[in-house]
């Protein structure tokens, strides 16, 4: 796709939310029909970028979460970002997950070892959390992307 045809008007935050929440889409370009000379582009105008589909194939199981703190800064997940979380994907070792531990939510990299599961930060300031009992915490979903507003 040619970058030149993407409009340059800014996409405000509000619009992005609408796209994620309501399954709407962002038209690439629009044409106006002129009497006498139909635009040759009309036949191709149905194409649209759907950020919702881009973020996840399953909008029903996709949730947004606000990132606080800098524990995942090494994975380019920064405070203020919106993390895109999918509940359906089965978490595997090495994935970045949203977990619920000690009464709070946390985003960490999951590492499954022989003795226990570990929630590992991507920041040397924080130690890994060891989870070795079912009561230790739950995996709520898998982080599949990040949205950042500049």
């Amino acid at each position: 796709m040619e970058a030149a045809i993407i409009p340059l008007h800014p996409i405000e935050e509000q619009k992005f939310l609408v796209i994620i929440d309501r399954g709407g889409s962002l038209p690439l370009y629009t044409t106006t029909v002129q009497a006498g000379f139909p635009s040759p582009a009309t036949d191709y105008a149905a194409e649209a970028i759907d950020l919702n589909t881009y973020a996840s194939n399953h909008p029903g199981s996709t949730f947004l979460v606000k990132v606080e703190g800098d524990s995942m800064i090494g994975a380019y997940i920064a405070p203020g970002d919106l993390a895109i979380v999918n509940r359906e994907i089965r978490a595997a070792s090495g994935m970045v997950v949203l977990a619920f531990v000690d009464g709070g939510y946390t985003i960490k990299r999951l590492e499954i070892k022989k003795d226990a599961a570990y929630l590992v930060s991507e920041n040397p300031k924080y130690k890994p959390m060891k989870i070795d009992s079912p009561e230790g915490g739950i995996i709520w979903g898998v982080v599949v992307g990040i949205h950042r507003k500049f």
Partner: protein
Amino acid sequence: MTSLFALVDCNNFYASCERLFRPELNGKPIVVLSNNDGCVIARSNEAKALGIKMGTPLFEIRDLLEKDGVHVFSSNYELYGDMSRRVVLTLSEYSPNVEVYSIDESFLDLGNFLHVDVRQHARAIWERVPRATGIPVAVGVAATKTLAKLANRLAKKSKKANGVLVLTDPVHIEAALKATEIGDVWGVGGRYARKLATFGVHTAYDLTQKTDSFVKKHMTIVGLRTVKELRGEPCIDLEMIPATKQNICTSRSFGQPLTDISDIEEALATHAVRCTTKLRKQKSCAAALTVFLETSRFGQVGQMYFNSRTVKPDSPSGSELVIMPLALEALRAIFRKGFRYKKVGIIVSGICPANQVQESIFSAGTRERDAGLMDALDTLRMKFGYNSVKYGVQGTKGKWKMQGGNVSPCYTTRLDDLIKAY
């Protein structure tokens, strides 16, 4: 008509929505209260086990709730609505035709599936919906909607069924009918149940053994439809297009008793806007409107008051500019000083399609103007929120509004309410 229906019903839906975002409440009793924190409208299994009944007023069980550490939520329909949408979205992957029957129930068309084992398919739905959305469900499958509903109920109750019951084998159907009390059959209320008991009809099975003429005589033609459905003869099809409502009522109990008419006017004006918006959404006009006003029904004699007034616009209308002033006029006519009011509401009726309205000579000309304005208002409100465009009379004090004591955040629909992860 399809040959096989599935009814997918979310378990303890409101309670499940609340708990999804509060994992620390897993295994703990929780209840959700009605609009004005009046009574219990949803319970987790743990709360059911404590003997808390549906519809119990909060004041009756406040002590029990505290003693047993029950978590109490005010209702958050924004959250439940979005979670319902997610469940339906997931269900639509399992059937070409899905009827959203209520916020927590959907009928699926499972007929004419080639090379699909229905049991496996139903089990897959049961397994998938909670994995995707976090909301547990039960699935009942049968040849008619009424039987699917019955199967769903048993699927929830029976340990062996474990959330899924496919009722296609005649032997199973008979056993299921015998295991279902007549009052628990879809479409048979408590009144019919008491009446039928006098004829020795106690279970769904008993009813299927009665003659058509008996049923028609005692339960009308609607009851006969239910009985035929119980016998496995489909009479109620999937409704893919929601039926146009015959009347629309918008009302709320006030957060506190109100005595001043201007506070009540604020509430009624807001209800009128919401009511006409619904009307326009189904492309209808209303020929009449009724305003009602009431005090608490539990007050002392002499302190209770109820009144209503019905008025008609010159011609059927869906315009706020027509309906709202009429409603306020009706309110002023029935308002009496000196009472502590609890609730005001508006009902629009005589609903007809907007494109079939007979013009009156008095409304001529204003119709197009109003239609354009209403279009613009509807668009603005959809884009920027319901309160983005208001009338002066709707006010800003909002004294009538509910004090939802413990409303959870709108985790899935508002930026400021998202889960925060560290």
